[in-house]
Structures are given as C-alpha cells and as structure tokens.
C-alpha cells in the first residue's frame, strides 16, 4: 500500500503476477488492486481507500483469479507469486454491474436535488459500468424522510448511503474522534452518530470529504450551487504550518467551498475544521477594501486613495531610516512577498530592523532554527514517522496542527513504534501515545534536562561527587517540571532503546525559549550515542518557515546568511518605540497588538511610534493604531509560494481579485519600494521567485511542480518539494528561565496557544468557525474542576494580576493539575493581557462568575 512506510529492516521480496495477460513484477503482499492499477487497469471501488484499513465490503473490486471458483475482492487480497488475475472478463463486468444494481436498489435516486450530483462516484460508476436499466420494482427502504443535521457543518441523508463506511473509518482511524458508527444491521444499517444525535466533534468534515455519494454533506454549502458552476483554484490552507493542499471554489465571486483531494498533497483527502470551513474570511464584509489614513494626529482613520496613502508614506517615512525604521511581516504572507519585504527594509530603508510574526523573540527564533536543524533542509513528516520513536514536545499538536496529528495517528497505528508526548494538556493524540509526560507549562527545559541527566547517568556514575550533584540537579528539574523520576526514566529508556528518533518540537519552545538549549543538547547527545535523529518543527503559521528562510529576521538574511549588522527584532523594536526612538514601523500581515505577549507594553510602544503603516486584510488591533492602513490580499487572491513546517515549498494560486481597491501584498511592497527607488523589484511573483532561486541555495532547485490529479496511489510524500540544506552560522543563546513561582492566591499556571477552530485572530471573521466554538472557554483538568467545585459549562471568572475575564469552563480529563488554558484567538478575551514581558507563564485564579 502506498502509505506503508518503507522499513529499512524488512527484506522486500518481489513477485511476478499476470494481470489480464500482462506480466508485472511487484512487491510481495501488494494488494491485487494496487498491482492492477500499477499495470494500468482500472478497478472501481467504494470502500477502498489507501489510508484506511481495508474492509472489502462494497464488492465493486471483485476480480477473477485463474483457478479459483469465486471472484476475489482485489482491495483486500494480496498477490501471490505466479497467479493470473483477470480484471475485465464478462463475469467481472457483470459482477460490477450487479453490485451497482444492488446499491441502487435502496438508493434514494434523488440526484436532481442532491448536492453531490455531478461529482458523485455512484453516478459516475453507474454511467460507466451499468446497469442502465432498473429491475428493482419493490418498495424502497427509507431511513428517514428529511435530511438531518449532525453538526453545524454536517447534514446527512442516509437514503443515499452506499455503506462504504469510509466516514466511520476516517473518523476512527485518521481523525481519532470515533464519534461515528453504524446503527442497525442488514439493509437497515446506517452509518451515523450515536442514535443520530448532534455531534460534539472536531467538525473537520473529513466524513463529508470521503463520502462517495451525497450522504454526508456540507451544511454551509447546501443547495448553493451545482459543482459545475464552481470555479476553483489550487491553494494551501493558510491556517497552520502543516501545509495542506486544498482547492477553494467560488461561484459569482463568493468562495463557498474548500475541499481536499484524494492523493493530492501530503494531507490527501483530510483537512481540519479551519481549512475546510474557514474560507469565509475571504468573503467577509469586514475586509479592508480601501486604504485608510489618519489625516490628523489623534483623528480617526478615513478612507483614502492609494495615491494619498503613498504620498503620506513618502512624506513621513525617511528612506535612509537606519535604526529608527523597522519592519514586521506576518508569517501568512507568501514567500515572494516576504523576500521582497526584507529587501525593501534592508535595501531601500537601509534598516537591519526586520522581523516576522508577532509573538516570538528574535533570539529565540534563531536558537530554535538551529536546534531544529531547519537550515539543514526540509524533513518530511513521513520520514519522521519511519523512526522507532516519535517524540512530540512543546506542541498541542491535535489542536495546532490537526492534519499532522492525523498523519501521526494513522501511521503509528500501522506499525510498531513509540509515540511519546510531553505537554501539560491532554489531547486527542494521547490515545496513540505509549508514553505521556504531563509537565507544567514552560517546563520543557526542566523535562529535557532531567532526561539528559538520566541518559548520561552511566557516565556520571563514575564519580560519587558528580552523582550527588546530578541527583540534586535532577530533583530540581523534576520539581520544576512536576514529573516523577519514573516518567523521566521511562522516556530515557525508550530513547536509549531506539535506533532512530524523530523529535517534533512545537512553538512552546519559542514562547519559553529557555528550553531550546536543552532541546539542542538532547539532540546532540542522542546523535553522539549513534542514533539517527530527525527534528521537525511544529509551527502554527502557514509560512513561518518561509519567512525565516527568506531572511525576515534581524540576525540573518535569505538562506540564513548572517546579517552584516544585526538589527532589532520585534521585542527590540517595541522597546525602542516605547523609548520614543522609532521613527517609522511598517507592519504587513502581522497583529502584534493582539498577539504579542504583554498587551499593555505593545500598545504603548506602538502608539509611540512616530509613523505606523499597517498592511492587512482586516482592521486588526494593530491597524487601529496605524497612521496609514493599506488593504492587502488574502491567500485566495494571490499567486505565490508557502513553505510549511517540514520545509516543503508549495504554490498557491489566485482564485479571485482582491476586494475593492485592495491590492496583492507583493504589488504594495513593490510599489512602496519603487516610490523610493525606481529600480526596486523584481516586478512580479515569478521574477521574485527566480531571484530567490538565484540568491538562496535552499530554494535553488526545489520543485514546485504540482499535479492536481486524483491520485489513488496516495503517494503523498513529494520529496522534491523539500528545501535543501545550507551552511548557516546560527547561535543558540542561553535564556534565563523566567521565574513563575508558586502562589497560593493564584493556583493555576496559564498556558496558551491556538484553538482547534482558530488560527491567530484571522479566523474570527469566519462565522462558521465561530459558531462551532460555542463561545470563549478556559480549560482546566478534571481533578482541579472537582477540587474547586466547578463544572464544565459554567461561567467562571479567570483573574490574574491586573486582568480578569469571564469565560466558559471546559474540563479535560488527563490535563496536568494546576494548568489553565485560554486560547490566544479570542478578540474579547485577549489572553496577552495576562502576560507580562519577561515574566514567564502567568498565574491566575478561577472562581465562579
């Protein structure tokens, strides 16, 4: 099967089989279906899907094997050496037609009103394989009269079901929610939720995507169009750095569907709720459609022409800015735009102050890049999943990168391997893990240091003094992390016993950078023990890696080449601004006012910048403080390239023009540059890409070739798209752990990150996603809820030093005691108000509201 990871320790035996007389050689145990498809013969299927366990139930794929009386299901039957398979005999063809006849017997036959009409696999197959005359003249069994909603995004009509069970299997095997199953038996069997109840699930709609017929349907898309009236563009989901391939489609200028395709992209047919239902932000009424300028100091932002906006910028933004000018670009811009952005800052404004993102400290970023080997080129997640042990740390991957999580779940279920998860909060992927370490927030450093000590114990045991010192240190680490020695030993043993290890390191290392050094140390230590170690970053912004690789960072330029004179990162620029020494700041696609940890500080700093230009697609918290606001374009409105967390460069295509007078960000940046320097360029995305390829060895021969074809083989890992390695001199700075001491008054440590249904603040403009969320929440462990007499669903007051907010309580089984979580995505509950610059994880208390 295409998805089985190649195991280097397994010997591959090749066998020769005949398919319709054609002799082919395939790996032993290949399914007949795969072998036949390889040989170029088409075999229709409903229930088969490469990434799901075969059940062989639809019987569409029956083939003849010479010498066997019965037809065999090719989707679950492996080849045997020497067999002769016939896939196109009259018997096989009549079996196919008869299966379709059976499926149609109880099928609703309501194609004229079915959303799936026109792209329905049942329609296509009946058209192709017959029968073209119906013989069924008995009353049909009906599951129900009216369609019923299963969730705010799923509506169901069981009368159209072909019982392939892909919905149930994708929910269980890939998504891991396991909320679908079948009711009844025989022709009354109905795959649905528990007694058709309303689902409380991840709402990712993968059940809809895998449904071959119109049984599971998108509720927001319902009755809006016929598939042939849609115009689509291939793109990448912009909501995390997993980099899922998808197609967005519009009718009459309104984007009404995002869908993934089987075998296309590393995600194949899967997406999460954000990707599949978050497209509404493109159509949002709140989009910026015209430049806004503040004509008087302390005045309001008023619509203006591009000429006026640019004139004001030219007047107030000194071209030879040097250290008093800075630029911050968001990690959701395309790679070409980010490249041009840093070029604009460095070459036109002559400033080294350039950074990307709103949350991470520049020095932390540099260390993280070094610790995760990003400069050494892309690391495919599929390669990581071939390791003996996968160690996920510093990421709530089930919520931050749902599709990466699907891949971990799916592959780890199919082979013997360790999945180790370290993190303060319980998550869905825990069920795939064979070791869980629940540590306090911001305690990655302590956990990793303890493991390093344990792995090194043999070396240290030689000297009694060292052992004593080690024990004392170990105790300190264990206490800081809230772990026991057994937890750490279990982890150390698993690492020691593995030959290959993949570490997936998440953004907690950027939020609390003192863990970076330990991460790097562990990596080096394991390598010194002769282990094959791969590190893959888990990032939460679609083009974060692209931004760094394009040199949107004060310490290095494109390709991680050290900048001649390092400039200020975001923290430095904000500090300087607070000191009244920033003349101008150009922020494109970033929202530090909403996301920088320490809201008071960032707002004060931004208001003291003498001239603030913000370019975005919505009037963000930051844009409200700007002197000039430039309307940019969303991912649906531009051509470009995004680099995902693995270092996979992928292209996005323009579907629609930007709304109103808004412009593509690349054009805005270039026009700005041209205002100061007529030769600033290159002039379009393709030329910028050429320049990147020339200037940046990592991208020199990355293949962006993309074949949008339904690919039944599921060969998802396109290694040609991974960026290449480069030589980079990056330093890992030592960070002091910010004290986050015990405080009886504030018993909870506050953790933050992305909500499953949101990415940054952008997705707040999607009505569907907001509806799914059912309000803003704070999450604590079950034990804490019991101990404090609080129940899930209750309104609670979360108060920290200086800020308090009322939220709904959610309770999670398995989360570390003493940990509270508030997502960073809520406009009305800005979690960054709890944080203080340089103070570590804040402490809060939770009481009944």
């Amino acid at each position, binding site marked *: 099967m295409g998805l089985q990871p190649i195991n280097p320790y397994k010997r591959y035996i090749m066998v020769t089989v005949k398919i319709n007389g054609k002799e082919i050689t395939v790996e032993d145990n290949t399914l007949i279906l795969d072998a036949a498809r390889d040989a170029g013969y088409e075999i229709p299927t409903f229930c088969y899907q490469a990434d799901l366990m075969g059940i062989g139930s639809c019987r569409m794929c029956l083939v003849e094997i010479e010498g066997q009386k019965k037809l065999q299901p090719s989707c679950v039957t492996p080849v045997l050496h020497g067999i002769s398979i016939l896939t196109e005999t009259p018997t096989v063809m009549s079996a196919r037609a008869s299966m379709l006849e059976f499926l149609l017997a109880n099928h609703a036959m309501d194609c004229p009103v079915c959303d799936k009409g026109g792209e329905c696999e049942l329609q296509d197959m009946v058209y192709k394989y017959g029968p073209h005359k119906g013989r069924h003249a008995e009353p049909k069994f009906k599951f129900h009269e009216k369609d019923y909603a299963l969730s705010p995004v799923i509506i169901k009509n069981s009368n159209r079901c072909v019982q392939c069970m892909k919905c149930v299997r994708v929910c269980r095997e890939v998504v891991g929610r396991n909320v679908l199953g079948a009711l009844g*038996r*025989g*022709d009354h069997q109905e795959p649905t939720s528990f007694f058709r109840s309303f689902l409380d699930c991840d709402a990712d709609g993968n059940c809809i995507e895998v449904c071959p017929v119109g049984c599971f349907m998108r509720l927001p898309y319902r009755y809006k169009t016929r598939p042939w009236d849609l115009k689509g563009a291939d793109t990448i989901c912009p909501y995390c750095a997993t980099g899922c391939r998808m197609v967005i489609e519009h009718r009459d200028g309104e984007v009404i569907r995002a869908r993934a395709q089987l075998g296309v992209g590393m995600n194949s047919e899967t997406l999460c709720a954000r990707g599949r239902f978050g497209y509404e932000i493109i159509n949002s009424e709140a989009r910026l459609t015209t430049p806004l300028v503040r004509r008087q100091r302390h005045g309001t932002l008023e619509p203006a022409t591009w000429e006026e906006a640019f004139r004001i910028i030219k007047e107030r933004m000194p071209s030879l800015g040097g250290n008093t000018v800075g630029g911050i670009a968001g990690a959701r811009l395309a790679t070409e735009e980010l490249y041009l952005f840093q070029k604009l800052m460095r070459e036109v404004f002559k400033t080294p102050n350039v950074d990307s993102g709103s949350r991470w400290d520049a020095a932390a970023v540099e260390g993280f890049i070094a610790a995760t080997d990003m400069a050494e080129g892309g690391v495919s997640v599929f390669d990581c999943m071939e390791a003996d042990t996968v160690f996920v740390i510093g990421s709530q991957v089930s919520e931050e990168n749902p599709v990466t999580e699907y891949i971990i779940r799916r592959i780890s279920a199919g082979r013997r391997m360790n999945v180790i998860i370290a993190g303060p909060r319980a998550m869905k992927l825990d069920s795939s893990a064979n070791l869980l370490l629940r540590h306090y927030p911001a305690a990655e450093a302590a956990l990793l240091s303890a493991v390093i000590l344990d792995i090194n114990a043999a070396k240290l045991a030689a000297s009694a003094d060292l052992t004593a010192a080690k024990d004392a240190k170990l105790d300190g680490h264990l206490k800081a992390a809230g772990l026991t020695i057994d937890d750490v030993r279990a982890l150390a043993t698993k690492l020691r016993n593995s030959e290959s290890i993949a570490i997936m390191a998440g953004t907690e290392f950027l939020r609390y950078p003192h863990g970076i050094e330990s991460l790097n140390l562990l990596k080096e230590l394991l390598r010194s023990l002769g282990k094959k170690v791969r590190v893959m970053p888990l990032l939460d912004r679609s083009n974060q890696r692209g931004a760094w690789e394009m040199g949107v960072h004060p310490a290095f330029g494109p390709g991680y080449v050290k900048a001649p004179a390092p400039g200020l990162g975001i923290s430095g620029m904000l500090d300087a601004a607070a000191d009244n020494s920033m003349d101008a700041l150009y922020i494109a696609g970033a929202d530090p006012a909403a996301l920088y940890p320490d809201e008071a500080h960032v707002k004060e700093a931004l208001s003291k910048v003498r001239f603030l230009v913000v370019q975005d697609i919505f009037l963000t918290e930051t844009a409200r403080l700007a002197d000039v606001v430039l309307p940019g374009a969303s991912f649906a409105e531009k051509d470009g390239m995004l680099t995902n967390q693995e270092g996979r460069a992928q292209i996005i295509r323009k579907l629609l023009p930007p709304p109103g007078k808004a412009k593509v960000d690349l054009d805005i940046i270039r026009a700005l540059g041209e205002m100061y320097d007529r030769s600033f360029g290159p002039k379009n995305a393709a030329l910028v890409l050429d320049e990147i390829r020339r200037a940046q060895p990592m991208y020199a021969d990355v293949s962006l070739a993309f074949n949008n074809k339904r690919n039944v083989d599921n060969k998802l890992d396109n290694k040609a798209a991974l960026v290449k390695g480069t030589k980079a001199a990056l330093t890992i700075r030592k960070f002091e752990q910010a004290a986050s001491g015990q405080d009886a008054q504030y018993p909870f440590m506050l953790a933050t990150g992305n909500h499953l249904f949101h990415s940054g603040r952008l997705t707040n403009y999607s009505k569907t996603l907001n509806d799914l969320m059912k309000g803003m929440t704070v999450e604590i462990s079950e034990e804490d809820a019991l101990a404090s007499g609080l129940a899930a669903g209750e309104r609670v007051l979360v108060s920290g030093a200086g800020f308090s907010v009322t939220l709904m309580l959610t309770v999670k089984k398995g989360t570390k005691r003493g940990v509270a979580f508030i997502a960073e995505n809520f406009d009305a509950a800005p979690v960054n108000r709890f944080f203080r610059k340089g103070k570590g994880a804040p402490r809060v208390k939770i009481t009944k509201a």
Partner: protein
Amino acid sequence: MEKILLKNLNNPDAHKIDVYIKGGGYKAFEAALKLQPDNIIQMVKDSGLRGRGGAGFSTGLKWSFIPKDPTIKKYLCCNADEGEPDTFKDRGIMDWDPHLLIEGMLISSYAFGASASYVYIRGEFAFGAKRVQAAINEAYAKRFLGKNILGTGFNHDMYIHCGFGAYICGEETALLESIEGLRAQPRKKPPFPALAGLYGKPTVINNVETLACIPAIIERGPKWFSSIGPEKSPGPKIFGVSGHVKKPGLYELPMGTTLRDLIYNHCGGMLTAKPLKAVIPGGVSAPMFTAKDLDTPLDFDSVAAKGSMLGSGAVIVMDESTCIVKMAHIINRFFSHESCGKCTPCRDGSPWVTNILSRLEHGDGRPGDVELLESLCTNIFGRTFCPLADGAVMALRGAMKNFREEFLYHEKHKRCMV
C-alpha cells in the same frame, strides 16, 4: 447404538458436577493431562473428527495450525451461537450435559495451549447460559479450572459470552468481533483466526458438538472413534429432526445413517398419511432433497455429492401439504433479516429476493419474477463477504431446482398449488 454425546440427555441431574463425575466424567481430562499436548492433537487428527458446526473441517488439523510458541497467548472459543431455524442440537448438550462441553474444551485448550476460553452462547439460550455458567463455577470449585489445574501447572480460565440476537455471530470471525465488544461483522481472512483471532491472538473456534466428541476420543482412542460410520467422516452425530414426522427431536446416530432410516425408523415415519415432499438434510441453508434422495447416507461427503450439505445436521421434513414458495420465503426472510449489512450483495440483494418471494407467496407475482430470482441468485452467490447470503441462495436455488413449477404457478396464477 450406545450414546456418546447425548448419554445424559435423560439424566435430570447430569448438569451437576458430582453426578457427572460419578458417571465417569473428567476422567478423560485427567488422562489427557498426562499426555503430551501434541499427542492429543495427533489423536484427534487420527480419529478423523470433522467440525460439527457445518463446514466439516478436520478438527485436529485446525488445532495444529496454532503456533507452538508458548509465550504467545492463545484462546479457544466455543461457538454455541446456534441460531438457525430448526437447529437445536447444541442446546441439548448445554442444557443437560454442560460438563461434557467443559471437559471437551479443557482437553482442547490443553492440547494447543489456550490459557482462556470463551463459550459464545446465543442470547436467547438463557437457560443454557445459566447451566453452563453454573457448571463453570462448579468446575472452578473442583479445581478443573483456574490456576495450576489438578497440580499439573496448567492454567485455564473459562468465560461465557452471551450474544445479543444476531445470527451472524455464528460466523467465526463475527463471533470474535462480538466477544471483543465490536459490531458483529465478519473479518477479512487472511489473517485466519489460527494466527490472529481473538484480541489478535491465535484462536481456535469449535462447535459445541465437536468439543463434546473430544472426551470420548481421549478415553476410548481414535481407532474406536473412526470405526463409527464412514471412513472419511466418522463418529457419532446428533441429528435434530423437525417437521412432519411422528417423533421429532434429537437423535444421536452414527454418521452415514440414511435419511430413510432416520425418518422412517428412528422418527417413526411421516406424521400423517401424506407422503414426503421434501426434506432439508442440514439446516435451512442446505438445498432440499426430494423423496428420490432418501437413501443418501447422512455424512459430509455423501450429502455434498448429492448437491446439498450436511451442515449442522438439522433435518427438516416436509409432506405434501407444504408450499415450497412459502418455505423459501420464510428461509430467505430469515437470512435477509440476519444480514449484518457489511457487503453489498447480501445487504441489498437478500431483501430484494425476499421481497419478490413475499409477493409471490402473497399472490402478487409478476411475470418474469422467477427469472429475476435466478438472476439475483447468480449475482449474490459467491460474491459476498461471508457465506451467510450464499446459504440463502443455496436454499432458494435448491427449492427452485426441484420445485420450479410451483414457483411458476405462483407467478402465473397468483396463488398456491397445494
């Protein structure tokens, strides 16, 4: 003939362990514990015992597929999900002689090294389940079950698992799914249960009657067993006779007894003066025989040679007053109702067939119905995931082969011939 399997059928206290032991019970188990496990497997192989659940696969051979590695946990499952209409042979053993079953299971478990066994009992057999559970409790008390059984170091636990009313659980892999707490649907094979069965471990699934044969084989030797009945399928066999005979009931007879002998000698002949019209030799999925086939010996091979199957040994006798279309409808209604829903031909094909038969039976036949039925049979047979729908098709095909004119009469005249 001496009764082996049903010897305690008329002994009201045989379900009590003391009575059972007094009658020589558990002797065979004690003897088996002194033998090498491999020898027991060889003895069962030599005896020629074939599975009594219907397929007639060699029991000793089935056991020998189990890996010998002692570090791997192994299971024995007893298939007591006797749910087919007119089949009632296993409940006789469970209700009246549960210790015979337990002893058989213990010997089998010891032979291939199973550390636990499950008796999967049809949910409707509440009395049988109660009896078997009580017997298991008694066996634990007497140290025939549990840790270090009779001081030999052999450990074994036994559980009962009651079904919930699904005939498909009699299919061995669906039975495993059901024990595991999953939806009872057949699993794909390979892997066969002998390698990856219950909870992914090597598992043997045997019928109640098969296991009940084991103690006698140990006690009296394989030669004795194979001397009963024909060479290829020897041994005693329980026949559950129902229908238009004077004395329906359970009959333990040697394999190879002819149908005529069974019906006219043992069962006392036809119920009334009406002559025999048809007889189903092995459960409702077996194609019907007519009066001309009455001299067929009832053993696996002879019945198969005549185009039917011995199956579970449920013999259903029908006289001239029986409408074959009605019979076919009842049988197909059962199978389509019991279809698990997994594969297309069974799920959507069987109810279609049943609907047509229902119309024929109720005077609403349409021209072409019989032809359509034959075509549907072709489309279903051999293309399903498990043999459930095959059974329905075989029964219907058998009926249509021998009594086609009745079906055509129903189609044309919209009423019954008889």
